[in-house]
């Protein structure tokens, strides 16, 4: 375990260098935006809407005393979605989708000797392959999460008006109630840390494969498992640090 962490640090030392050619790096970054971000939009949208809807329905269902106003539904949905569901759950989903993709892409390049080919040409392969991916995730995931927050709250509203448990007006009042911008800051900090975990841990598992196609599969599974666990652990740590 400690050896693995050491190798991870060494790899990151290689990754965080100035790219050989700025224009090539920019082109790669655009490709990564497309494949790591835009292609995840669909699944994020679906999950966020349903997540928000479920939170709203459950909250409404649990309010059975007239002492608690129904505007609480909007408030609770917003708080849950912004604080936890969007940053953490969506990051876990991205760990599965983006993480396995990064690990298998880099792993395949390793087993087909493409990484060796880069190195014999004198290219810093770790920097060339991994840096654009990490950068893309760090820049893009906050946007994805913000979109997810809006869609989650929208999903809650949709659920309220279709089930007629809460009126549209009450819900919106609730959503706007007692809003602290610090919660957004907290959520985005989490998102950025999780984005770094997903991209760097997955790249690490892909980069150090030896063997063949089976190892590529094993590595992408490991990438997802490790980055998910790390996300959960860091979620706790960051919550302790930032919210208490």
């Amino acid at each position, binding site marked *: 375990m400690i050896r693995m962490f050491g190798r991870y640090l060494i790899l990151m030392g290689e990754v965080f260098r100035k790219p050989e050619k700025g224009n090539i790096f920019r082109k790669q970054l655009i490709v990564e935006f497309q494949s790591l971000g835009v292609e995840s939009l669909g699944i994020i949208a679906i999950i966020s809407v349903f997540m928000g809807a479920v939170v709203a329905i459950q909250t409404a269902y649990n309010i059975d005393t007239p002492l608690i106003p129904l505007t609480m539904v909007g408030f609770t949905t917003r708080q849950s979605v912004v604080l936890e569901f969007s940053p953490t759950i969506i990051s876990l989903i991205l760990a599965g989708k983006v993480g396995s993709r990064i690990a298998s892409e880099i792993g395949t390049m390793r087993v087909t000797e493409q990484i060796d*080919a880069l*190195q*014999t*040409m004198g290219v810093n392969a770790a920097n060339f392959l991994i840096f654009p991916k990490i950068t893309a995730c760090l820049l893009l995931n906050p946007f994805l999460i913000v979109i997810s927050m809006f869609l989650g709250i929208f999903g809650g509203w949709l659920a309220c008006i279709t089930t007629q448990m809460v009126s549209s007006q009450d819900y919106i009042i609730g959503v706007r109630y007692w809003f602290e911008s610090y919660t957004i800051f907290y959520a985005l900090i989490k998102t950025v840390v999780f984005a770094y975990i997903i991209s760097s841990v997955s790249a690490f598992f892909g980069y150090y494969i030896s063997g063949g196609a089976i190892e590529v599969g094993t590595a992408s599974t490991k990438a997802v498992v490790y980055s998910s666990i790390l996300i959960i652990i860091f979620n706790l740590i960051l919550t302790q640090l930032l919210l208490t």
Partner: protein
Amino acid sequence: MIRANNISKSFGDTRILKNISCTFEEGKTNLIIGQSGSGKTVLMKCLVGLLNIDEGEIDFDNRVFSKMSNKEKKNICKELGMLFQGGALFDYMTVEKNVMFPLSMFTKQSYSEKLDRVNFCLKRVNLENTNNLMPSELSGGMTKRVAIARAISMNPQYLFCDEPTSGLDPLTAGLIDDLISEITNEYQTTTIVNTHDMNSVMNIGDKVAFIYKGELWWEGTKDEIMKTDNIELNDFIFSTELTRRLKK
């Protein structure tokens, strides 16, 4: 000329290369032959610096690899081209982009200069008008040829080929061998070829080194190889029915 001086390499407790000393000459195709698993690829990866050697020294025209700074190592990298066993083409790039890659990475040439060079290299390997194909659309022989084109795009002084003919039919294999040998003569490169293919040995074996279980077992030319009485080498050469019959 590339010289390996007493090099050893182990993975964990298994010694893969045992005190190999060998020279590879300029303008010649130097072959490394041996059974699968004998350590040919490991030896080649040590020579190009992909693997670190445990003992010994490697020098490129008297420039000792282990004593070089990272910058000097990088400069050597630009002087060498390598053809990997599976081609190792970048599979998300077209043929043109693959061959152009080293040029884009390390030169300041304009696009049209680079394109000229790419077309020249592709023509050299008889693959004109394949610029826009993806690696997945190429046959085995074409893949190897594109990989050769990429390896020579920077005009290397040293050319390394790991099993260039494995997995190809004898005719295509012959074409690849000829190509490698022509390029070597034309540009006077120091060419090192790993192979277990006796046809290649007979075609292009200017100088042959036989690796047996990680040791340098025999060295000589393709003419000497037929007359040797080295037992292990004989077993290796005359391992097929065809070659045995020919010997009789």
